[in-house]
């Protein structure tokens, strides 16, 4: 059995805005796909509102890269919909999201040095 190549968090950067927001939304706890989409749309005031195809394509990619995992735990029966799948962020996913945030912080610092950023746009 050949060893699977495990990438360093920095290898997966930069993340797309959709992927980064999905990871951020999962950092607070497990969610199913539809809840994840609504949370991202709420956080970004609708600027990022992925359709179902883009959403599950992104989930598929994050599962393959080990950024998230499908949760085996289910919520209480009266809150649960059996057809839904729940996803949670992995420790590796946290590291990648952190690395992306650090990258963006560096970008902001460079932009601030260059232009001098106002407190609010």
């Amino acid at each position, binding site marked *: 059995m050949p060893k699977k190549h495990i990438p360093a968090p920095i290898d997966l950067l930069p993340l797309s805005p959709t992927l980064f927001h999905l990871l951020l939304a999962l950092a607070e706890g497990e969610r199913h796909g539809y809840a994840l989409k609504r949370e991202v749309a709420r956080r970004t005031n609708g600027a990022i509102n992925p*359709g179902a195809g*883009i959403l*599950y*394509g992104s989930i598929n990619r994050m599962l393959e890269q080990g950024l998230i995992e499908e949760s085996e735990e289910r919520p209480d029966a009266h809150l649960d919909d059996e057809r839904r*799948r729940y996803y949670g962020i992995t420790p590796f996913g946290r590291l990648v999201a952190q690395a992306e945030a650090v990258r963006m912080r560096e970008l902001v610092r460079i932009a601030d040095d260059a232009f001098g950023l106002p407190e609010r746009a």
Partner: protein
Amino acid sequence: MKLYRWLLNLYPARFREEYGGPLEQQFLDDYREAHTTGARFKLWLSAVRDLAWSIPLELAHELRQDLAHSLRVHARRPFVTTFTIAILALAIGGITGVFSVVNAVLIKSLPFRNPEQLVVLSNSGGRMTESSAEFHNWRKGSPYLDDAAAFMVAEMNVSGASAPTRVAVAETSFNFFSALGSEPLIGRAFAPSEDVPGNDGVAVISYSLWQQLFAGDPRVLGSKLLLNGAPMTVIGVARPGLNYPAKASVWTPTAFDFARLPKSGVFFGRLSGAGRAD
């Protein structure tokens, strides 16, 4: 919902099996929240946009994964891979060769009318007939043939509008083109009186020779050619692709002009109903 479910079939099978259910469920959830016609119309627009964007992405992702997997598998077994590629190359080469032959012999039809009715009749050498009249009496009397034409091929020097060139010349009976079922592209074929010695100084040239010597000029009709020094008047240009027999570039109705060249002839015939039955 049926339409949306049908559109999901455009995703790669693996993705559809894994996420088809959640995709449907999400569309259904959104649809339930869209109460007005306008909201539903907007939902459909955004669903179609999402599908148009995500389906090619998933197909490309699937293709990339399959290619990467295939490369990994083959890289682990270089000898098997080399052997397989060699076998494939040989097989593809062999099949291409066989197809080329089958295509040329069986599939691609000959540029003649009803080519399956044509047969080649070869005599055992020497002069094939004493005269044009004798040959035409024979072919008209044959119960097995609707028609027959005589021909023989010789290499000759052609000169005229440009420097001399060596080409295959078919000397034929006057009815060569009508028996073959391929009338000239421009001009005319030979008249019955023209395969008689003394009256046979005319020629039909091939399409490629027309392009080569006359640059496709339609005023070629009436031009003079010298065939081994003998003057011939061009009366027609054959159809593109016709070079029968023996890649002929010029046809002359001189099959019975025995003084012109020594001849041993070949015939081809077009079988009649009786000929085909036998």
